[in-house]
């Protein structure tokens, strides 16, 4: 049996995703309000209002609570001597193997939100594909970057 990847990503990622979800929810609320107001003014069919409210609430629940939680629970990665393995996906579970000898470079990236929570994302690039680990604690991301790039260099081989 291939080992399942074990390492979880930072728990603070959950917070970041919830904040992102909340921002999206605000936008949905604005759009919803934009529908409800004319619905009241112009006497549109009455069912529109509860429908819009329901959609907004459902979206809020999914975006702030349900999806981040499951996403965080499912996200696993593992860096071994010869390969990086990633596993993620809320409903559809995706597992990817990236051999070290195929890694071209490793980037860490930090948006304003990630920075606020002391997180960073790590992108592992091969000659053909890019694989991202979305939120790691900044020291961990840094370590990982150094670690992967060192291992990748050892395994130098022509494409």
């Amino acid at each position, binding site marked *: *049996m*291939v*080992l399942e990847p074990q390492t979880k990503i930072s728990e603070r990622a959950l917070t970041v995703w919830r904040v992102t979800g909340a921002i999206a929810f605000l936008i949905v609320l604005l759009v919803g309000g934009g529908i409800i107001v004319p619905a009241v003014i112009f006497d549109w069919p009455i069912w529109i209002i509860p429908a819009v409210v329901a959609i907004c609430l459902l979206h809020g629940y999914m975006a702030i609570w349900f999806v981040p939680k499951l996403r965080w629970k499912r996200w696993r990665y593992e860096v*071994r*001597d*010869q*390969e990086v*393995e990633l596993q993620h*996906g809320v*409903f*559809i*579970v*995706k*597992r*990817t*193997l*990236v*051999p*070290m*000898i*195929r890694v071209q470079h490793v980037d860490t990236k930090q948006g304003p939100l990630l920075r606020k929570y002391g997180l960073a994302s790590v992108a592992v690039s*091969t*000659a*053909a*594909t890019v*694989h991202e680990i979305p939120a790691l604690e900044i020291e961990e991301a840094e370590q990982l970057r150094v670690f992967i790039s060192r291992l990748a260099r050892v395994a130098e*081989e*022509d*494409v």
Partner: protein
Amino acid sequence: MSEPKRMHPIAAVLNTVRQIKDMIVPFGVFVIFGSNNFDLGYLVGALGVAILFLVAGVISWYRFTYRIEEGELRIEYGLFVKHKRYIPFERIQSLDYSEGILQRIFGLVKVTVETAGSTGGGKGDAELVAITKKEAGVIQEMLVRAKSQKTADAESLEETNGSVIYRMTGKELVLLATTSGGMGVILSAVFAFAFQLDEVIPYKKIFKDVSEYAAKGMAFIALAVFIVLFLAWAASVVATLVKYANYKVKKVGEDLVITRGLLEKRQFTIPLNRIQAVRIVENPLRQIFGLASASVHSAGGSAGNVESWKVLVLPVIKKDKIPALLEPYLEGYQLAPALKGLPRQSLRRYIFRGWIMAAPLVILALVFFKEWGLLSFLLFAISAPWSWLSFKDAGFCLEDDSLTLRARGFSRQTVMMKKKKVQSLTLVESPFQKKKELSTITAAVKSGAGASGGKVMDMDKDDAQSVYHWFSREES
């Protein structure tokens, strides 16, 4: 050959022509929408612009010099800003040659220098638009010598030594030309034929409300569509004949060299050790006749030049001839692997997926054509056997260090990859797949500056796991 050289003056003309070609759309728009009355001013203006282009072409030819110095191809050019590009010979992947009509008249050749990592719209490599064949031969020779560090066996451009692997026969050329874009024509032929059948099938009695005139009109439209398609097809046949005439594949040193073309001669070089994957494609029409095409994905090549990523090696050939032809040269590739198919329970998923894809079309048809839209339900009937075919065709083969994945979109595609060339491997499992113990496998290889690869949907879970194991380097 260390003193800077200029290209043949014809390059100036070619530069001009290219610049005019680049400007023709905006210029045309300007002329059409600019004003309605064509007067002398316009003519003079257009002429002035053309002359400006010519002058620019001449100057850019004048400013463009190339030389070979210290194992580098050194190019300097630029109208206002002086550019210098030095390309070390070791970095040069291949020299591709092509001869347009103008070049042929003057016995010249266009040389495209392909380097490994050139990205961003083909900016990375260099182009010598028009130099004499002798010059090209000298460059080639120096390149070969620099690369192999020994006296080159003086390969001239005219007749490169090396064994001919494959020469396209006249029959294959005709097959290639006639079967490449043929589906549309055949479909429309069937369509037109069906309308001719109205003498046998009483359409008019079936649809009373469809007037005789409309029926005639439809038949006429069908015929017109058929004729137009037929002409387009005939044109594409001629174009293909011209493009692929004299098709030859040779092995020269460690490279595959492909030459082709009647009016414009082209030569491609594929370094064998840069090959990332081999792909065999059978479009439905060719599959009926047991024909297929074989291409290789190569790393490197310039980003702008699609032809250098996925190179057709055998444009069309009897499928069972491919292994004997290519296996001796593509080391380690098994080109006729015994594939393992999919488990029965994935057939339903294939058919279901086909229907999901057809559903939006059916809904649109119902909305727009009302009762006539009901005909679109036929799509469901057609999609099922197609899905069955896709299901039958999908499969994989694991063998030591190579992985083969086969699937059908429109054409049946078989991709052969070596473990060490696969960039990443992904295994996907949706809740529905999980219930039926199925998984999807995707393998990515480098192709030019981007990615390509293979994908098989709904494999048996254990099979998918075995592929995943195979790719893992830390098997426990």
